[in-house]
């Protein structure tokens, strides 16, 4: 294992060159979203960045496809629409 990023504040280990999706799935995190009743939550589905089901929020940046984006040390991620902004 080569590093950790954070999912909702929890550290997740990843291997070098691995996508965020692969690391999350290995950690048993398949549910990527906060469904709000009428919108389904996120999860990895097509694996090629087309379905946008695996989109995750990134601290201080725009959301990204977890199936396409390489995991990086210290990245802070969470379910859409945004990381704990306290605006709810």
């Amino acid at each position: 294992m080569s590093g950790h990023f954070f999912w909702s504040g929890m550290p997740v280990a990843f291997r070098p060159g691995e996508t965020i999706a692969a690391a999350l799935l290995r950690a048993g995190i398949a549910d990527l979203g906060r469904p709000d009743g009428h919108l389904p939550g996120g999860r990895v589905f097509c694996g090629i960045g087309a379905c946008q089901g695996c989109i995750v929020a990134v601290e201080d940046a725009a959301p990204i496809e977890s199936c396409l984006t390489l995991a990086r040390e210290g990245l802070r991620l969470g379910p859409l629409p945004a990381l704990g902004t306290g605006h709810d």
Partner: protein
Amino acid sequence: MASSAAIHVAVIGAGIVGAAAAHFLAAAGARVTLLDASGPAAGATGASDGAVSVASKRPGPMMDLARHARAFYVRCERDGLFRGLFHRRSTFLVARTAVEAELVARHGADLAAAGERVVEVDRATLLARIPGLGASVCAALEIPDDGHALGYEITQRLLGRSRITIRRNAPAAEIVMRAGRAAGVAIGDELVAADAVLVAAGIGSAPLLGLGEILIPRKGQMAVTDRASLSGPAIDGHLMAASYLAAKRGIAREDGHIGLVIDPLMTGQFLIGGSREDHRSDHATDARTIAAILREALDLYPPLAQRRVLRSFAGVRTASRDGLPIVGAHPRREGIVIATGFEGDGICLGPFMGACAARLLLGEAPAVDLAALSPQRFVRVEAHA
């Protein structure tokens, strides 16, 4: 044959104005055929932001009409016609420089003089209402009585509740005259006979009415983002930068001007606009213009840096040569009523103006004095030319 008492009106243009006119004509017992080159809300109505706003209007007849039109929305929502489609939402007029602050203050005074509630908001209060607002924002006014409605939803609601014959993919070739009176509309080889014709076709009105020099297309490019919120609008009001006000008040800038508005949609997404490109009537968007709009938007509201653009699109506004809409009986051709030239104010004014046009077609007086919008004003100009 239908009842001989029922007037048959052909309405050209199924945007918000035409749809409203058709609705109110049908409600009054008229027989209505609504014609569109494409379909309901296929033009500017379907490519607009959701502002039902008095705040953005030029002082004078426009501001006054907008107050009537917004009150009309409130009544229609309360009476059920627009239930669930119209929402109260403040407009914030926002300044980022001392010059802009002066403009905003002047505009606020004009609004107050027209009877509108205007609230001065200091930076601290503004930040509490709209967290994350840009550091360059120095002054703002809140217009708390403004509202929000989506053009294509209003159009669909207006058309869904009446027995109107809608003809899609039916471009009007010409208005057929017989003995100096409108007799109907030619669609290809077919004549749709009618007792009266309403032209509410936006930029498509020009060739039908011989108004080529008087109507000016003004393209506006916009972008829609993903959701910032899962539960309703992401911020507490519609943000309107001084640049938008400058354009609406006719303070000339170089062409390609951006009048910045940030519209928080009910879905939690943002609609960000927009460019003002005179004499452009195409629907293409280009990266440089959209990028420029986004740079302005990020300066005004930096939290947009956490959003993604889902799509870009363009609408074509119909402006008139003197900046006022054209509503009234055709000066020379009997049986034709015109309702166009609403520029970027069609969503706000549309339902009310459609209702006024319906009254005119039925031979009644409209709810307000529309003399300032009369098509006659162009005839006089030409007579002196």
